[in-house]
């Protein structure tokens, strides 16, 4: 009897131990898997799942396997608060991260703030400016003053030219991200002594951009700063080419020109556009682990009809999970306060290099790249996989080539 009881007790203990060990850590998020940002949202998800598999292969976090609980927010801001409420109240996830894109990160803030959750965020511009939340961490390397840091490089490049250009046109999509970017562009233009001759927004579902580009051309600006989302970026690039825009610099904040599919279809229309980016194949950006990660991503993305190269979002999607994972392992806890303190105080080693957050959760130093498209051949995806098609002009620490100025096609 005693032996049987002892066996039962041991078995119960082992089972309890096993159950606790198998109890997964759930990370919850919404992701833009469909809708205007869907192409990149799906690429981000692939990168995050590569991270999850890597972590689980190495034994999980705190010895527990990692699981994702996620829902498609369809790039629709209205869906986001409901999703995060469900994740936290019904699915009872242990950790949360954000969706992709300013427009779908901002609506989650009030929910995560109420629950005091640490909130690593993926590519949102100046989301925390109005909230001032001390547990928000943005993996996009915009810098401590994101709105202004976003376009600072673009305008500094312009100001460095000889003779210095005098006039600036600003055109932005009427949506959260673009309005933030345009606000920063305005500040930069004014502080660097440019005169703003055109400053307007357009409604997101605009079909044809020819009238807009003509109106800009009528003011004869030297520099044209565009803040747009993927379909509009394509429309603006095409219209600029068709109208024969005579500006000396064109680009700045065009989302979408970083996506492989759009790069391939625009081809030579991209020539000499100077635009933001966060990672390109350049010798100055060869961080430890990034090329191995990209190979894994490219293999996983092959049949999934998403960005085949994965240079834009995937490395950062992997990195923001790395930051969270490293914080959990280092603090040996899932306490949101402890994690947030750790994330504020430490530098993380990730596939996108060293990541250090400032007080407002943005990067302590900006690493916005300004790249120029050069020698683009038509209908060739391969050229974007190699060094040479996108030359890093700014910041000086990462510069890989000299500017071609003025912009002409």
């Amino acid at each position, binding site marked *: 009897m005693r032996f049987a009881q002892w066996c039962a007790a041991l078995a119960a203990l082992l089972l309890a131990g096993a159950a606790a060990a198998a109890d997964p850590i759930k990370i919850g998020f919404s992701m833009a898997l469909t809708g205007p940002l869907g192409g990149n949202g799906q690429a981000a998800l692939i990168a995050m799942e590569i991270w999850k598999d890597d972590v689980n292969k190495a034994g999980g976090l705190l010895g527990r396997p990692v699981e994702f609980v996620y829902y498609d927010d369809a790039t629709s801001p209205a869906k986001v608060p409901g999703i995060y409420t469900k994740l936290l109240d019904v699915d009872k996830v242990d950790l949360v991260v954000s969706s992709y894109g300013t427009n779908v990160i901002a609506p989650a803030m009030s929910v995560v703030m109420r629950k005091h959750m640490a909130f690593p965020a993926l590519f949102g511009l100046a989301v925390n400016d109005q909230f001032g939340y001390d547990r928000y961490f943005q993996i996009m390397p915009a810098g401590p003053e994101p709105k202004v840091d976003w376009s600072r490089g673009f305008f500094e490049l312009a100001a460095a030219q000889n003779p210095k250009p005098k006039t600036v046109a600003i055109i932005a999509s009427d949506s959260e991200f673009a309005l933030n970017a345009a606000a920063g562009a305005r500040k930069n233009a004014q502080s660097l002594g440019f005169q703003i001759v055109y400053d307007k927004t357009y409604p997101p579902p605009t079909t044809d951009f020819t009238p807009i580009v003509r109106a800009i051309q009528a003011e004869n600006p030297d520099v044209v700063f565009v803040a747009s989302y993927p379909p509009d970026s394509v429309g603006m690039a095409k219209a600029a080419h068709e109208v024969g825009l005579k500006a000396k610099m064109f680009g700045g904040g065009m989302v979408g020109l970083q996506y492989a599919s759009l790069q391939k279809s625009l081809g030579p229309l991209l020539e000499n556009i100077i635009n933001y980016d966060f990672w390109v194949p350049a010798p100055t950006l060869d961080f430890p682990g990034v090329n191995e990660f990209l190979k894994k991503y490219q293999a996983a993305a092959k049949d*999934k009809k998403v960005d085949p190269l994965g240079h834009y979002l995937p490395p950062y999607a992997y990195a923001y999970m790395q930051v969270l994972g490293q914080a959990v392992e280092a603090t040996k806890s899932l306490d949101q306060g402890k994690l947030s303190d750790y994330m504020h105080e430490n530098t993380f080693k990730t596939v996108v290099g060293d990541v250090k957050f400032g007080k407002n959760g943005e990067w302590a130093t900006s690493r916005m790249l300004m790249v120029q498209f050069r020698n683009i051949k038509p209908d060739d995806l391969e050229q974007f996989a190699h060094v040479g098609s996108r030359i890093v002009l700014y910041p000086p620490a990462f510069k890989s080539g000299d500017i071609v100025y003025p912009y002409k096609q």
Partner: protein
Amino acid sequence: MDLFANAIVAGILLGAFYAAVAVGLAITFGQLDIVNIAHPAFVIVGSYIAWIVNARLGLDPVLVGVLASPVFFLVGALVYRVYYAAFERTGQESLSGLAFFFGVMFIVEVSLILAYGVDYRSVSAAYIGKSFELGPVGVPLRLLVPFVVAGLMTGGVWLYLSRTFTGRAILAVAQDRLALQLMGADPVRVKQFAFGLAIATTAIAGALLIIIGPVEPSLGRVYIGRAFAIVVLGGMGSIPGMVVAALLLGVVESFVSTFAGPSWAPAVSFGALLVTLAVRPAGLFGRA
């Protein structure tokens, strides 16, 4: 002056494209009173067909649209059959019918996402990217080709509706079903034909859309408001009215974009719609 001329030309080119999207709806909603909210979704399917064949076989997108239209015609006829059997026959078309078409729209959109993913798709053709100058006015071929094709298609549809027996039967069935039956035409078959014709136009309109810009599955939604507004503004049941309304919308959007700032364009367009309906409730060319 340059800017003015360019704004008008750009508006007319764009307006012609809007007419191509709205002509099918002018038939189904304007003449048959079927609230086909899935109409723009079919246009997107047309865009995807144009993309697939253009990418695989290199055929010109407009040609693909024309070749695909008989298939779309059959699909349209089938959809109408289901709609008639389920709703019109039992008199439930107003609310349940609308829900049916919402359902069709979502199914179409999700099917496209499952089959082709959410990335943007574009076509390549010799004329995309080129433009020529007519004096002070620059005309991008990317908009001129859709203008020409839209004109031909809309003109063709209107001639068909006003000159042939079946065409006039379509116009008649909306006015007086019983009288049409007495004239020896089966109203259900006539409506089925009309619906098929309307969906056939979306094959071509979709090809034009993807010539103008990149397409992804949910893009149809931004055209729902515009297409219905154009049909209502033109006057329910009038194809020439719809064309005028579409051109007007295109020109107003273009003008406002150029001179007042693009963010005003939708407000002004829909404001024009409201003002017109207040002054002339039947629409521009509508029968009162």
